[in-house]
């Protein structure tokens, strides 16, 4: 992958919906923004962090706010550019490249628009390779890299830069600021050198996202052997085919939590339960955990193979549940404390996906 053009957006968007693992924000609007930016400013060069000068500055950008608000306050594009510029100006250094922080959901596509607009390359890497709900849930936190200094910006020209002592404080401060800034904002955090990105980021995320998107598109198109290829090449396993029998939605502490109950359709007398906090976190079969965070739990429509988000899920949906391995970069000290089941309040152990 050397360049990204408007033609690459569809596969990337489908992959991003899948890696959103039920949440991550609807990539539809982000797709339109990226499309317009690539049409206006031309293709974006995709680079590996290792190919940049080691001390080059890499800045990230992402949307922060409320998905419901973003449906009304469509991105201008300028808030992402000005957030990146604000942080660069604070650091006293020009960025050499833009990087997505979360390849999964809508944050996959917005940095591409920003890179196009700024005429900068995009780094083929990120810090999650799936969606997670909080800024500190990154492999950078595991590496001890600070989220700050970070910037938030709106489309009007308001910007704030924070120095923060922990990545958790970074999350809290940024959230508080955007409530005052209209809840449809940009955040630029984890300013890093290319050498740090090369050492600590998840490499090849955009390629991976595009590739799983293409593999899934082939399944949707009904291509011969496409389903097996999709599972093989993404390292995924099918765990369950079921019908949604119950759906309990509630909102606590600003997170959309739900419990989904699936009844087996493969002729087994089995029930799957999925616990959700914005993203799908734990899947149980007959009470036993079979897939746990940070591995990905993805629900696909039985007939169309479209990834289904938690918001769109309804009683009677027939779904295939697959477990996808999280990026190998997650497997290091501290992973379970940061993004394992107990980090989300579930008193169960992490379960490896079967080989």
């Amino acid at each position: 992958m050397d360049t990204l053009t408007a033609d690459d957006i569809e596969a990337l968007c489908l992959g991003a919906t899948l890696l959103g693992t039920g949440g991550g924000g609807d990539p539809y609007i982000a797709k339109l923004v990226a499309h317009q930016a690539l049409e206006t400013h031309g293709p974006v060069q995709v680079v590996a962090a290792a190919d940049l000068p080691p001390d080059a500055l890499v800045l990230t950008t992402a949307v922060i706010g409320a998905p419901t608000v973003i449906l009304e306050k469509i991105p201008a594009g300028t808030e992402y550019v000005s957030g990146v510029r604000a942080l660069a100006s604070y650091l006293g250094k020009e960025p050499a490249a833009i990087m997505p922080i979360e390849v999964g959901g809508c944050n996959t596509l917005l940095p591409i628009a920003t890179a196009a607009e700024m005429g900068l390359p995009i780094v083929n890497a990120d810090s999650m390779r799936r969606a997670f709900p909080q800024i500190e849930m990154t492999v950078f936190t595991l590496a001890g890299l600070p989220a700050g200094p970070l910037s938030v910006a709106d489309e009007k020209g308001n910007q704030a830069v924070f120095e923060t002592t922990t990545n958790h404080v970074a999350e809290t401060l940024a959230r508080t600021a955007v409530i005052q800034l209209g809840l449809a904002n940009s955040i630029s955090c984890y300013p890093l050198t290319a050498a740090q990105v090369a050492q600590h980021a998840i490499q090849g995320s955009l390629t991976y996202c595009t590739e799983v998107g293409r593999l899934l598109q082939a399944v949707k198109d009904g291509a011969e052997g496409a389903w097996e290829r999709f599972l093989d090449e993404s390292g995924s396993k099918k765990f369950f085919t079921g019908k949604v029998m119950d759906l309990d939605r509630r909102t606590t502490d600003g997170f959309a939590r739900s419990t989904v109950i699936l009844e087996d359709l493969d002729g087994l007398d089995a029930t799957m339960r999925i616990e959700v906090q914005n993203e799908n976190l734990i899947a149980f079969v007959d009470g036993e955990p079979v897939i746990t965070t940070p591995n990905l739990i993805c629900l696909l429509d039985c007939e169309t193979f479209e990834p289904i988000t938690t918001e769109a899920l309804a009683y009677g949906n027939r779904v295939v549940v697959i477990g996808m391995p999280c990026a190998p970069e997650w497997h290091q000290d501290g992973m379970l404390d940061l993004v394992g089941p107990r980090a989300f309040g579930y008193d169960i152990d992490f379960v490896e996906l079967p080989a």
Partner: protein
Amino acid sequence: MSRGNEFRIGIDVGGTNTDAVVIDSAGSVVRAVKVATTPEPIEGIRQSLDQLLPDVDKSLVAKAMLGTTHPTNAIIQRQGLDTVGVLRLAAPSSLGVRPGAAWPADIRDMVIGASAIIEGGNEYTGAEIAPLDTDAVRRFAAEATAAGCTAIAVSAAFSPATSDHELRAGDILGTELGSAFPVSLSHQVGSLGLLERENATILNAALLSVASSVVDGFGEALAAHDLAVDAYLTQNDGTLLTAAEAGRFPVLTLGSGPTNSMRGACALAGVNDAVVIDVGGTSADAGILVDGFPRESTAAVEVGGVRTNFRMPDLISIGLGGGTIVRDVRAGNGSDLVIGPDSVGYAVATEALCVGGSTLTLSDVSLASGRLDGFGDRALVAHLEAGLVGDSLAWVDDQVTIMSDRMKSSRDEITLLAVGGGAHLIAEQVPGTSQVLRPLHYSVANAYGAGIAEASGTVDRVYSYDRTSREECLDDAKELAANAAVRSGAHPDRIRITAITEVPMTYVPGGGCRVLVKAVGPLA
């Protein structure tokens, strides 16, 4: 309420047939007719009235309701659409996505004559994103008319909650272009979701000429029969628009056909909650009625390739109908069936085996099994193997069960209404349903559904449960919806709330919540 017996006329213009019924105060069908839909649909409406009215006491007719596919067809066929100027009040936000960005090129080039994103619109808090740029509104009026636009669509960020900027822009356009120049404001057309609401508003403006010809034609057809009655069009949520409102908001009539059919079927069967499966020649459509109204889709609905957020009934369609072709592609032992998705369609009356044709269809299988009666000759399908018949019907039963399951909102058993010409395919017992009913007059269920439509009002806004309690916020929303229903003609004492949907806004501490409420009531 009127005294004594009072008749209503319900008319539904579908793709194939135009149906019309006269309904009395008790809800009984006085007379029903079916005529072929004509290329110029108003002609079909005239013909249906000509056949409907001779034996009816016209002095008793008080109201006439029309459900029609005219506007839908105009969009799908890209015919008769107006050129629209698109004005968005949201800058500096939203500049990243131009109006019409995701439209198919053919309809975008045909409909969008000029567009601009100017300063204005509101935040989720109600504060201004920017003060409305009134000079830019005036400049756009000149640009749009110079570009040949015959209508303007105005959409502002968060206008369903705060409509002030759209109203002011509308006033300025009226001053600049004359009050007769058609202007559609998005808060009167759609709900939250700026891009989808803007799309709906553009389509609305593009349909204004089509709408006025329908409304005028309907009025003329009624006048030709000396019917000085209140005229209404049905909208896609199963409630009514006055003919004058329909002339201004034609986009709200899109998709009213399936809604009328489902509501009509339920009313004819005397139930309020049911899964309805309408089996035609080519496809089966399933929907669900909750408290007498179709459940609406939460997913974005595309019309002619344009994504909108209309209040559309939640429907699923599959290729299963009386004319669906059954192929036996056996290899070695046992049969291996391929059923559909193609169909002989309306040619089932000449093509099916049981009428002497040469194509094995689901109607043949149904006849051989005894489910279908009174169509074709059973002797012509006597040779079909029991295994083939059984396997085909097992497939049909599976599909019907899947459709009704997907429609149900809980595991509780619910009535299944089987309607349409292919309803015979649906078994007497369907798992997950309490009973299968086939109501009388179901062939004109859509016209009956139009005739029994009620008035409604909706509200869709964001509340903060932090500043005011949830109960007070919901009460406020219910009152606003009820007031809107009364403004639409509902009887103030007979209003009921039919839907309350709360969508919590994630990441917003302080209980921000989007609330949608619908109130309906019979006409006063």
